[in-house]
């Protein structure tokens, strides 16, 4: 009788529907996360893991300047990538939403996703070819006589990492902004002009505020995963362009120090979460519910 009612009531049905994805999320998100948290309070004894509770890992992270430096650099790179990506994505999304014939919008979105047709790794290598010492940019500029010797500040440093990541995440930023722009009732823009605003001031008073939810989403979608990216800095960053994720990877694999890696991962995650929450909080007035 009780089970019968369980399946019939509104909440019960919802629970039944939710159960499989919930279990899935638990297995793939919560369990690894808990494992990482647990590991971060243990220590590595050569080949064994010492499971006595300790804060040694965190103490080391705080006292050794290298970790703080890497974390800072990571946040800086992610911040730059986010700014560059969103600043480039907004005009593209705006153009597609406002200036492309409605019947052609889907083909434009389709074209925007083309970079995703090749693997991430291949795209990174392509950027190497473009930015390299004898790469497309350098030979092009030298051929044109603009420069005498190859530019060196575009590969194997932080700039190269930023360029590559900004390109990789562009569609992720374009799509949410595009969706937000699409949702704007065009008569609002006319109303603004009718009330005395120019096209430019209409953009700042109406279009931009109404597209903020998309902009915030784009910022988070780009910012959060770039902190964890280690492939691009590994391949493009050179010695000075390594980030916190590379250190985590090194700890887990090369140095076989999973507990310290876990603690680093947690610290990075807490930083990202705190910054993201702060960002959402600062933008809360644009994210209020509306009809």
């Amino acid at each position, binding site marked *: 009788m009780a089970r019968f009612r369980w399946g019939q009531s509104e909440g019960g049905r919802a629970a039944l529907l939710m159960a499989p994805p919930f279990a899935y999320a638990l297995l793939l998100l919560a369990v690894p996360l808990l494992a990482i948290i647990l590991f971060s309070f243990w220590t590595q004894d050569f080949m064994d893991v010492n499971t006595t509770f300790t804060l040694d890992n965190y103490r080391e992270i705080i006292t050794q300047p290298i970790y703080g430096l890497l974390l800072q650099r990571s946040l800086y790179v992610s911040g730059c990538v986010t700014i560059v990506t969103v600043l480039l994505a907004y005009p593209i999304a705006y153009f597609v939403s406002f200036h492309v014939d409605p019947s052609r919008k889907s083909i434009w979105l389709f074209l925007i996703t083309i970079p995703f047709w090749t693997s991430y790794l291949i795209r990174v290598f392509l950027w190497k070819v473009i930015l390299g010492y004898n790469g497309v940019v350098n030979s092009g500029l030298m051929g044109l006589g603009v420069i005498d010797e190859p530019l060196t500040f575009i590969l194997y440093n932080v700039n190269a990492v930023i360029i590559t990541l900004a390109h990789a995440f562009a569609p992720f930023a374009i799509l949410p902004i595009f969706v937000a722009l699409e949702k704007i009732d065009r008569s609002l823009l*006319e109303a603004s*002009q*009718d009330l*005395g605003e120019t096209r430019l001031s209409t953009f700042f008073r109406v279009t931009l505020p*109404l597209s903020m939810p998309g902009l915030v989403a784009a910022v988070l979608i780009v910012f959060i995963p770039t902190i964890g990216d280690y492939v691009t800095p590994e391949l493009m960053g050179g010695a000075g362009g390594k980030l916190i994720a590379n250190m985590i990877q090194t700890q887990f694999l090369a140095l076989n120090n999973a507990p310290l890696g876990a603690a680093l991962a947690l610290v990075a995650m807490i930083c990202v979460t705190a910054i993201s929450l702060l960002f959402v909080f600062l933008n809360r007035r644009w994210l209020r519910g509306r009809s």
Partner: protein
Amino acid sequence: MTALISLRGVQKYYGTYHALRGIDLDIKAGEFFSLLGPSGCGKTTLLRTIAGFEGLSDGTLKIDGKDMSGVPANLRPTNMVFQSYAIFPHLSVAENVAFGLRKSSMSKKEKSAAVKEALDMVGLGGFGGRASHALSGGQRQRVALARALILKPKVLLLDEPLSALDKKMREQMQVELIRLQRQVGITFILVTHDQEEALVMSDRIAVMFEGEIGQMDDPETLYRAPNSRRVAEFIGKMNFLTGVVTTDGGTVSVDVAGLGRAELPASQVPQGTVPGKVSIGIRPETLAILFDGETTQRRVVDATVSEVVYYGDMTYYDVRIAGVESALTISMKNLIGRPVLDVGAKTKVIWDERSLVLLPA
């Protein structure tokens, strides 16, 4: 008196589609003017050209004597109430109303006083702090009105502002709009496809068909003396019969099929009437049923009731008359003691020459 808004030979093409086909229009300051017409006839297009959202393909538009070609919407002395109201969802009610005041020289205090006054005027005093999404349709409409009126435009353009409201609300807002217009003295141009709304509210109405103005008159003239069959069909209910006009010296008479011959008073003869076949319109309320025990000085003709529609205060009868092709509709007030006839009842229909509206065949 010079016109506040004056259009001459205005043409508008959307690609190859000819949306406005030569509009000539003069609207006086302080007038309540309506654009009335069936869907797709170009009312919105005409309003948007006045507002500055659409350019003209040809012709001239002057507002207050100034040519408006090349003047963008934000610099025109017009404000618009959009059909969807276009309330900014990210702003509160007060912020919406104050939107157009950004460039004004008013101090902050004066602005908030103006906002309060505008909200009071539309009956939304105390709503200033509300989020704009927490408003009903009628309230949104009032916010849109307040937002436009606060700028004291020379002309207020309203694109079917009442069509989204239910009947009760609509009637209430009609009265309020008329009151507001008298109070602020601003010229209103109202687009509507509801002929009743246009008749109730306007000083003058332009009836549009397919990008042209069919007739432009005050409501009474428009109703009493439509100049064509399509105007007559669009405004109110109208029965159509055929007839033959004959002229004899100064008098014009018409032989109406099924009813008989009548001499028309000069006021009812449109200019340019020539002998020959014509179409004749008869309003349902200018005919009457002769009930048992009633008498009349007017002419009567035998008829059979073919349909009865009861409206409470009124009853609409469709009657058949020998020699008339289609049924005639007659509206009768349900006065005390007056019965409601049944379908099939034999009766008499009262008419006279004052019922007849001559229309080009």
